[in-house]
């Protein structure tokens, strides 16, 4: 590690320590459930694993083993420690196995996700029919977050522990084997599995797996056959078990085998059968499925070669329609697969790019009717499935046709906004920046690259030009030369024509090419412009080529026409022998073709590329051979995380607060004249003061301020019990499990008044103080209401764990300018930044600075929310805990340098980050490593930030719901520094070079495998473990600002679904890259029809519900009225909900010229609706009516 990196982490950690001290002091003074901060700090993965599991000694052992072996091997090695008892303190065999299995899963998931605690319920040792014992592991749904490999290895670990403990194998009964097959199939059909094992496979695994895979019921469906089995507690599918069996063992058999081979005690010879497919054809399918990725890649290669050998066509990637599936109404398509006019692939990484993002020109975002904004997710054709959109203005923007006939390239967001209302057609949506690492991550063959200035300049240098001199020259612009210069360079140096004048010849036919050449020869000239006859074919050709021009009644005017003419092989009529310069051609009196006819080779080529190469006096490259289709996925997000209804205080008030859970109302609640207002019965934990034996529900004794303990009393025998080590409490006499929860009468009025008084607030300090109906935690200890009062005052709300959270879409950034973050260079220098990316001293606000890995950029909304939170925290410290303020922030700038937690759903570990600036985009920008440490990538995922002190003061495990998954999404541990080796390895595939070599672009034209060119571009993986691992993230493309383009996607600003859909269809009409009929078909197919059909089906099999008491009935009661309360029962699906889209769908089908098949389906549905909802008798008149 470089000294500056060390200094950086030390400064973070020292700030963290300071905050910790304050928080610890505060906690000892308040009435929190625990008198200490409940988020332990983990310096590395070993710490996280130990903290998440709560098993002492694991971290030390993990650190010992880490240097010597892989994580998987370490997990197996730890099994021996658990069995011998050197790690963990377990008395029973089951406990030892459980500890080993949890540790293994925690290790394999880097101690970040909740799977090890939430995904494994328990381990039991039970009896086989022959009297021997076996091990059963109870999995739960959240094991999903561990991933297939960790799931499978957890079984192996259990088996290894089992064999070391000398417990026998599981011997399933025949009906159990059948049950597993039925159950896995049922789970697959209900919930869906990534891999669906055949019945035979499931049975085979069940029969052979030496450990019983068991688990909790996760669904309401029940198996039909094999019910009520003695050793299987439920008739519903056990989701965790199904995942481990199918996505773990069945799918990852080859990976497990690698480890079984190294262990003498564990033999799983049957894995070989699973891998080889000797369990009949089923297993054969298994293998094919399992290696899907590889075989796909292989066949793609094959295609690529075929295409290469094929004489009549250049190498192209095959269009893929996958991203169009499940199109959603209101989320538009921007390009059909590989269709002309769609996004043009350009290689490179912008500074706010990489890690599952796509660079789009901000002008494009505006012209796509603002549907794309910074952070909007798109579903894309390649290389991955989805990507987050980032604005990059150093790539080419869109080309549009305006109502006045002008065809223009739009190169700035300002221009885009200016012309937007006049756009009649978007001929091309511009370039689409994808970095090499994306192809590595997705193992996708390289797609042919666009011809771009950065490639051209290398060709130019190779042709002998002194590029450096030209770069320094005030008379040349290598990125955007004028036409004469471009022609001169192309002819003089024998380099390819500059991309600025390279038209999309591969998008027109040879016939169009010839016709255009003739039209150019015949054209008039007016004021230096070429005036072509207004022929439809010629116009279409110019549009396809993306030549800027003006379409008028009398002619098509092409202003900068010389490179076009030269590319068409058109020269001066008088001196056809000599290639004219740009200037001379412009002055020439007559134009003439320099060629008579094209060769057979050029004529047979599927596009005009060969023709151009043949007749142009210089080399012309394929301008944009790869088009990438995509559509909108999720909109970006930046909003505070509120429970529904929002909650200020985790204090229970039952139904007394009404639907709003208003504590003020609850305090005055008296249903009866005789009742004391505010006395409410709620379920709370009973606690006892260890000193004075006072019983209370509060965390501290109201009399002597001592922290209380939960009080467990058996309701039958009245015996007081104590929890055992695992936290379970049993009555020592009747052996029933106990909790300390009972219905208690609480004086909410008193709580409320004294809370207000204690923090010195009046009721008019806030609009409403919202509590909760009941507590969901196991011990049901309420939060001190004072905290709620202050939250309400500062208008922030609490999440289920007591913290204040703000959600943002994740985006990566590796270099920033102080100015774009709305901070100054002084702020940056205060934070320890002293150099820009070029190594120059940091002096100006617009210098580009490489971002440190734990520095984060907040959205404006998040900053505002953090400010409110800081004020809340300060009030809390001063008014409630009686300490000094911690933040004392006056304005947003003061937030710079403050620490936050980043935390993603389904994980249990927070990562410490430092605020360095703000963005107007609705996203959270941070280093890719920061996102990866939270186990996120940036393809549209979102997660939250919390203010550090808020988390330290207000988080308590005691608030977490006592149900499966309750520990997820809670900061059970925090990482204070990021170790790049211990994060999601997807981030290691971000490339870090400042330019890609020419060879790379050339390899892309051959559709090389990304692995073949790994010596050409550096990815972050290569610096892992070196001193440079935190630095050196270069980028190839800059962008003026990281939040260009619309601030919000139109999807969020448009009102109803109908408005969104209208906008979606309207946009599809404008885009040349989109087939609007197909969009309409898909909207009908995936949105309207499923809705109509689903609701119609639901109607005729619906449940009913009592309007008065809410009781549900599977079928209408024969009494007609509610059997519970006698109230009115009504349908849950009405005519209105069934046919709400019918007319619109029929209209759309008509307007967008959908297939007759689709129209008939709608017509048929319409008639079915009529048949159900109309009365035959007063509908039409039959012949009988007039007799």
């Amino acid at each position, binding site marked *: 590690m470089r000294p500056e990196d060390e200094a950086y982490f030390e400064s973070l950690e020292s700030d963290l320590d300071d905050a910790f001290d304050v928080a610890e002091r505060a906690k000892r003074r308040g009435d929190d459930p625990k008198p200490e901060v409940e988020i332990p700090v983990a310096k590395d993965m070993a710490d996280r694993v130990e903290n998440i599991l709560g098993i002492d000694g694991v971290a030390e052992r993990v650190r010992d083993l880490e240097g010597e072996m892989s994580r998987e091997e370490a997990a197996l090695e730890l099994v021996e420690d658990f069995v011998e008892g050197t790690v963990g303190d377990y008395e029973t065999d089951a406990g030892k196995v459980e500890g080993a299995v949890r540790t293994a899963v925690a290790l394999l998931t880097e101690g970040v996700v909740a799977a090890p605690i939430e995904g494994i319920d328990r381990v039991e040792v039970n009896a086989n029919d022959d009297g021997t014992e076996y091990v059963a592991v109870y999995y739960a749904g959240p094991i999903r977050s561990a991933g297939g490999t960790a799931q499978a290895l957890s079984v192996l670990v259990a088996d290894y522990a089992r064999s070391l403990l000398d417990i026998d194998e599981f011997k399933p009964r025949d009906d159990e084997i059948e049950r597993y097959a039925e159950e896995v199939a049922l789970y697959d059909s209900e919930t869906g599995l990534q891999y669906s094992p055949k019945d035979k496979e499931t049975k085979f695994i069940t029969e052979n797996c030496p450990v019983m895979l068991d688990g909790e019921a996760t669904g309401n469906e029940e198996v039909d056959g094999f019910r009520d089995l003695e050793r299987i507690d439920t008739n519903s599918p056990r989701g965790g078990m199904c995942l481990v069996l199918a996505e773990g063992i069945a799918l990852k058999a080859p990976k497990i085998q690698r480890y079984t081979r190294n262990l003498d005690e564990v033999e799983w010879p049957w894995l070989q059968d699973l891998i080889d497919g000797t369990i009949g054809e089923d297993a054969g399918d298994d293998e094919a499925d399992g290696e899907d990725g590889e075989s796909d890649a292989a066949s793609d290669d094959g295609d690529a070669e075929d295409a290469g050998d094929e004489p009549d066509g250049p190498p192209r990637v095959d269009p893929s329609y996958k991203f169009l599936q499940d199109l959603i109404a209101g989320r538009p398509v921007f390009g059909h697969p590989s269709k002309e006019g769609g996004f043009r692939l350009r290689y490179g990484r912008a500074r706010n790019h990489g890690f599952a993002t796509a660079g789009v020109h901000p002008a494009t975002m505006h012209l796509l009717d603002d549907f794309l904004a910074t952070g909007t997710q798109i579903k894309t054709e390649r290389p991955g499935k989805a990507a987050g959109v980032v604005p990059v203005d150093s790539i080419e923007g869109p080309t549009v046709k305006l109502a006045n006939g002008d065809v223009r390239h739009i190169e700035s967001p300002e221009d885009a906004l200016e012309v937007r209302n006049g756009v009649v057609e978007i001929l091309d949506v511009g370039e689409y920046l994808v970095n090499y690492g994306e192809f590595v991550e997705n193992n996708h063959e390289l797609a042919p690259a666009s011809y771009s200035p950065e490639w051209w300049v290398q060709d130019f240098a190779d042709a002998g030009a002194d590029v450096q001199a030209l770069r320094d020259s005030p008379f040349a612009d290598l990125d955007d030369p004028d036409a004469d210069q471009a022609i001169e360079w192309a002819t003089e140096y024998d380099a390819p024509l500059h991309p600025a004048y390279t038209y999309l010849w591969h998008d027109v036919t040879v016939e169009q090419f010839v016709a255009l050449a003739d039209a150019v020869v015949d054209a008039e000239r007016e004021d230096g412009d070429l005036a072509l006859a207004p022929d439809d074919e010629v116009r279409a050709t110019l549009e396809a080529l993306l030549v800027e021009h003006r379409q008028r009644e009398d002619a098509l005017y092409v202003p900068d026409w010389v490179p076009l003419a030269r590319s068409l092989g058109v020269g001066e009529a008088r001196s056809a022998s000599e290639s004219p310069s740009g200037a001379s051609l412009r002055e020439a009196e007559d134009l003439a073709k320099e060629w008579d006819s094209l060769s057979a080779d050029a004529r047979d080529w599927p596009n005009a590329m060969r023709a151009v190469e043949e007749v142009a006096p210089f080399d012309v490259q394929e301008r944009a051979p790869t088009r990438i289709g995509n559509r909108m996925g999720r909109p970006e997000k930046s909003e505070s995380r509120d429970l529904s209804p929002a909650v200020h205080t985790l204090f229970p008030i039952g139904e007394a607060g009404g639907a709003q859970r208003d504590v003020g109302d609850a305090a005055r609640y008296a249903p009866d004249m005789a009742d004391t207002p505010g006395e409410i019965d709620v379920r709370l934990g009973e606690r006892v003061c260890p000193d004075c034996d006072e019983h209370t529900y509060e965390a501290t004794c109201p009399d002597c301020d001592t922290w209380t303990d939960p009080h467990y009393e058996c309701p039958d025998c009245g015996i007081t019990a104590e929890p055992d080590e695992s936290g379970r409490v049993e009555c020592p006499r009747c052996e029933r499990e106990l909790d300390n929860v009972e219905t208690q009468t609480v004086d909410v009025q008193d709580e409320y008044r004294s809370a207000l008084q204690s923090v010195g607030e009046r009721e008019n300090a806030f609009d409403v103080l919202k509590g909760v109906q009941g507590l969901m935690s196991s011990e049901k200890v309420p939060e001190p209401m004072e905290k709620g009062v202050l939250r309400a005052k500062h208008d922030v709300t609490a999440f289920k764990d007591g913290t204040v959270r703000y959600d943002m879409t994740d985006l990566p950034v590796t270099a920033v300018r102080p100015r774009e973050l709305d901070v100054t260079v002084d702020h940056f220098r205060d934070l320890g930044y002293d150099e820009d990316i070029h190594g120059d001293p940091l002096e100006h606000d617009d210098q580009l600075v490489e971002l440190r890995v734990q520095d984060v950029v907040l959205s404006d909304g998040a900053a505002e929310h953090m400010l409110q939170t800081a004020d809340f925290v300060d009030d809390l410290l001063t008014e409630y805990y009686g300490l000094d303020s911690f933040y004392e922030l006056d304005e947003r700038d003061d937030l710079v340098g403050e620490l936050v937690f980043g935390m993603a759903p389904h994980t249990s570990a927070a990562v410490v980050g430092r605020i360095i600036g703000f963005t107007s985009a609705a996203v959270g920008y941070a280093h890719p490593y920061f996102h990866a440490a939270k186990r996120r990538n940036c393809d549209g995922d979102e997660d939250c930030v919390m203010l550090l002190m808020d988390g330290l003061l207000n988080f308590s495990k005691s608030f977490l719901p006592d149900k499966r998954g309750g520990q997820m999404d809670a900061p059970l541990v925090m990482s204070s520094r990021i170790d790049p080796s211990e994060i999601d390895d997807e981030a290691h595939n971000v490339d870090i070079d400042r330019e890609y070599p020419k060879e790379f672009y050339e390899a892309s034209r051959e559709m090389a495998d990304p692995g073949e060119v790994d010596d050409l571009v550096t990815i972050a993986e290569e610096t892992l473990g070196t001193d440079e691992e935190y630095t050196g993230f270069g980028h190839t493309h800059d962008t003026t600002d990281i939040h260009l383009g619309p601030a919000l996607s139109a999807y969020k600003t448009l009102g109803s679904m109908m408005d969104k859909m209208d906008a979606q269809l309207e946009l599809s009409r404008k885009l040349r890259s989109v087939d609007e009929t197909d969009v309409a078909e898909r909207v009908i197919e995936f949105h309207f029809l499923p809705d109509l059909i689903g609701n119609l089906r639901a109607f005729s099999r619906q449940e009913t519900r009592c309007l008065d008491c809410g009781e549900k009935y599977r079928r209408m009661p024969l009494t007609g009225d509610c059997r519970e309360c006698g109230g009115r029962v009504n349908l849950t699906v009405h005519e209105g909900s069934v046919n709400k889209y019918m007319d619109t769908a029929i209209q759309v089908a008509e307007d967008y010229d959908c297939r007759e098949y689709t129209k008939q389906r709608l017509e048929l549905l319409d008639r079915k609706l009529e048949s159900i909802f109309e009365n035959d008798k007063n509908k039409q008149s039959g012949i009988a009516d007039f*007799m």
Partner: protein
Amino acid sequence: MPLEPPVRVVRELTSRGYNADREAVTLLAGADDPADAVERAVDEAPADALTLTADHVRGVLADATPDAEPTGAGGPSDSDADSTPADRHTTSSTGTETTTDRGAEVTTPPETKGVERGGESARDANADLRSVDVAGDITGESTGTGEYKHFVATFRDRYDKLSKKLRGRVNHRPTDALDSMPGGSEAAVVGMVNDVRSTASGHWLVELEDTNGVFPALVMKDRDIAAHVDELLMDEVIAVEGTLSDDGGIIFADDLHFPDIPRTHDPSTADRHVQAALVSDVHVGSQEFAGEAWDAFADWLHTPEAETVEYLLVAGDMVEGVGVYPDQDEELDIVDLYEQYEAFSERLKDVPGDMEIVMIPGNHDAVRLAEPQPAFDEELRDIMSAHDAQFTGNPSTVTIEGVSVLMYHGVSIDEVIAEYPGDEVSYDHPHRAMEHLLRKRHVAPQFGGRTRLAPEEKDYLVVDEVPDVFHTGHVHKLGVGGYHNVRLVNSGCWQHQTEFQKSVNIDPDVATAPILDLDTLDVTVRKFV
């Protein structure tokens, strides 16, 4: 005869979709047997005629054979006392599953190929002996508008009709009366099955509902009747007899009764040797449609051997339809819905023009999916105008020369098979599922499952009258059997195995045509592949 003959003639004509000249009406009313005259006038009316002319009627009356027997009125009591169909049915139903005592003829004899068509067949001569009456048809009677009260009315009607069939057998106590009876007393309740649960100890808790409320019945797992619990479908009506528990909160079931068909049911038969072909699931338009097999079937109908086959009943799924399942268009031979029906109509034209045809819709057809399904609308009827077929709803009871045939497409068979444990009710024995429906006296009892219900004034799905023949399709498997003297026929199909069927391992019985003897109710299965 309460009405004047001219009025009856006009009414009769309009019911068949014809108008008539005043003179024509007078002529018809003045005929010896006006009903017969109307029948023949209509039969021989030009295909495009809407109004019958006097000339036409004169021609018809002149042709009338003096010995024509009056039609209609073939009530159940008319069945011959000397025939012993009951015995024979019993034998056949317990015999091999596939066919009857006469055995199946596996293929069409080759010589029947290329039979000359168009000549006057013997069938034609019997035209005036025929009769087809339809009852229980929803078509044109659908008054439900999808409101809650219509659902309630449907289920109440079901309970009323079915509980009547059980009240004679048990002494029903309303559920609210049971609540107040002393513990330990004997009691019985007729109720709609509201819920079936297994208890922790493996017994069964069946919740029964009547118009007053619900009451639980406990069926102990070791009792014989526990086996019947597996057969229960939600929302069927049963009776339970037993003893009230001590606290009176539950009834311990000793006996369980289904509405059922009486064992003594004596089916009606035709007065002459005449046959009906019972087919279904033609699926024209599907790439898998077995067109060549249908040709062979149509050819065979023209042979002398098939002379007595005067009726053709089609139990739904004339065409493959559109939008029945996702991406169906990729498996369609004819993508246009109307062209599918036109193609079906062409296929129909291949069968002898003098056959009587009755059709109900199925789940692939272009009518509502919710049951009861009304018959095809005018537009589709116009397309399928060949042979002047009769269109009726699903289900309907069609009485042919006195033999009542309950026609039902059969969507609920899937459900019965899925819910029934064990192998005896399976896709290989669809008629076993039909037996259960008859026991329940309801063609699709379970609400909220696979079958869909359209709420109406009454429950058209109740099997109120005992049919002589129960004809279904849908599952594409052949099944012939008998149950308490009711002949059960599940037709095969005219569609080869589809990809979907392959994936779930269903091997359909393609191109099988069960031929029913209306005078004996015996069935011969003809195969045309």
